[in-house]
């Protein structure tokens, strides 16, 4: 066991994966000599050489497009995009190519690549550096989408993503990179894709979150505990496949639910979760499911505090769903 923050856990996962499997390689902008702009790949080029840790030209579609070729040919590329906003320049390759290779060839070819990118606000980064774009990937059959919230899951989910036979979008919470250290195991372990975690058990309201929003949910839970309100917090960990069963079981117990995400509200992942709850647990609910999300605006980075969900907004939503009475 070693104390690691989230970015160190990512670095550890990459080191372990490259040691265990010679097919694994890393590619992206500044991932080599510089060790990544956030140091996720620190020390890897020295250890594994410049054939396996490759500084590519500055071109996201080229990175993803050539990673597709590498993956189809039998390698296991882990590509880094410096900020998720820049992945838009590779969208055609991700959504229309990588996601469809298995289906197009009825399994003759597959595309086991991992795309890592930090996302979300909270660190005062400029436009295109703070967007929460996960819904675009979640809406694309053929892609898996992973969004860990803590160092232990970050390592185990990244190793599971690299093992996975299909393309995985691995989203890292930018503001969670150095948010705290925890003890995580050395060596190889995986956290399975598609399994949510109940990170705080409770009885009154289910709060569903992922990535940086898990900390917001836990902060609200702590404050509400003083008022005698008990929140059950679910960290989804993986958005595709979605662990609907864990959500439904919890909602059947608490009869109240709130979804939190940073992304704009309309057609966000929260909308899908609300629909799943309605389809499977509507009669367990004592109030409509609430959403605490970003607004449908384009937030200037200097004003992100008024945009991002925080514990206060979560607490307001909790009071609102609990105050809702059957007529």
């Amino acid at each position: 066991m070693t104390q690691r923050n989230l970015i160190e856990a990512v670095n550890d996962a990459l080191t372990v994966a490259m040691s265990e499997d010679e097919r694994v390689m890393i590619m992206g902008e500044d991932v080599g000599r510089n060790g990544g702009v956030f140091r996720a790949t620190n020390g890897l080029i020295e250890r594994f050489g410049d054939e396996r840790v490759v500084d590519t030209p500055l071109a996201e579609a080229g990175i993803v497009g050539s990673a597709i070729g590498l993956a189809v040919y039998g390698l296991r590329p882990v590509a880094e995009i410096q900020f998720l906003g820049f992945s838009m320049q590779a969208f055609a390759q991700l959504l229309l190519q990588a996601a469809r290779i298995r289906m197009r060839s009825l399994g003759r070819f597959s595309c086991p690549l991992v795309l890592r990118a930090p996302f979300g606000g909270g660190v005062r980064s400029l436009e295109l550096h703070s967007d929460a774009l996960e819904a675009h990937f979640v809406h694309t059959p053929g892609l898996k989408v992973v969004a860990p919230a803590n160092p232990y899951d970050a390592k185990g989910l990244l190793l599971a993503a690299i093992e996975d036979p299909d393309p995985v979008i691995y989203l890292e919470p930018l503001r969670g990179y150095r948010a705290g250290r925890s003890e995580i195991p050395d060596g190889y372990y995986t956290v399975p894709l598609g399994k949510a975690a109940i990170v705080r058990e409770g009885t009154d309201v289910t709060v569903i979150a992922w990535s940086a929003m898990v900390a917001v949910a836990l902060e609200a839970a702590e404050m509400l505990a003083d008022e005698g309100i008990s929140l059950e917090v679910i960290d989804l960990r993986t958005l595709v496949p979605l662990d609907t069963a864990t959500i439904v079981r919890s909602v059947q117990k608490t009869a109240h639910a709130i979804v939190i995400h940073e992304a704009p509200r309309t057609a966000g992942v929260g909308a899908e979760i609300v629909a799943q709850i309605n389809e499977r647990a509507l009669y367990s609910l004592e109030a409509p499911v609430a959403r605490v999300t970003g607004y449908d605006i384009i937030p200037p980075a200097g004003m992100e505090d008024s945009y991002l969900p925080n514990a206060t907004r979560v607490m307001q939503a909790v009071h609102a769903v609990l105050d809702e009475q059957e007529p």
Partner: protein
Amino acid sequence: MANTAQEQNEGFQPPQPTRQTLQATSSTYFSQPFSVLAPDGTPQPGIQIEESADLLLKMYRWMVYGRIFDARLLNLQRQGRMFTYAPIIGQEAAQIGSSLALRQEDWLFGSYRDGLACVAHGLPLEHVILFFRGHPKAMMVPPDVNVFGQQIGIAEQIPHAVGVAWGMQLRKQRSATLALCGDGATSEGAFHEGLNFAGVLKAPFVLVCQNNGLAISVPRAKQTASETLAQKALAYGIAGRYVDGNDVIAMYREVRAALERARHGEGPTLIEAVTYRLGPHSASDDPKRYRSDAELTMWQDERDPLARLHGYLLHAGLWDEQRQQQLASELRDEITHVISNAVMEPFPEPEALFDYVYATPTQTQVEQRQALSATLQSSKKGVRFP
């Protein structure tokens, strides 16, 4: 500080073009495209035909095969048995010269108009028909065939081919990849990013750009201000060749040499094949709206790639009218057989579509699959759905 920067700027000398670069610029990119045979099939002055009779007859056979199936497939579309079709006619030499230069272990990345090149590299013709029928088996190529489908997105196959070439390089394989694209593709970002990556990596990669003069209706002159497409190679620091794409021997020689350089670590090549699309862009296109009869007639009557090789074969005493009749009749029968099988290829049960999105379907998909099954079952029982 400003002074330092200024001094540094003053000290900067722009790189002088070397004699080699200048020569390459003038002779490689701006002269007449390289050709071996004149349009009537006689060898160009000073050029020896070193290719074996077997190879020349193989090239010819494939080009005739392409010409026949192309007409048959366009007809098939007109009968409503394919959704659309992108005719190849006029580009047979560019595709066959490229494809026959490949070795079995090399990978080919084609677009939707490159069915002939794909078939010559081992893709069963049936798959070309299935592709235009929207059949999910279209790209399920046989395991020993290294053809990565027929890409629909313009230029998107270029970075894929560079990635596979990169993989071959990492795996120390003596093989290479070849991608085909059109002149319109040179305007796309993927063309630039792919070639730029290939140049930096020295990937074993060859890109044959079939400049057929038109991107649907937009003429080559409106795609780029570059005088030739081949000259773009210079900017990527890679080899470029300007070739008569209707001369199958010239194409074969240049593509084979480029693949050899690639396999020996000498980096990628961009080859511009100057050709012409004699047919419409697709089954729903009317080329009369954007090109003159005179232009079409010139290419049909004076530049047909089949006529050129045919002329040489006659001149060399390798061919006659009787053999021509025999070949055409044999290939017609073969193609008829493939078509009748392909149009009978059953579509899988709809539920099977859930099996290939991921290696293992998600729980959501399992539920959707069950719902689809129930719907299909009810339909079979005669329950009407709105």
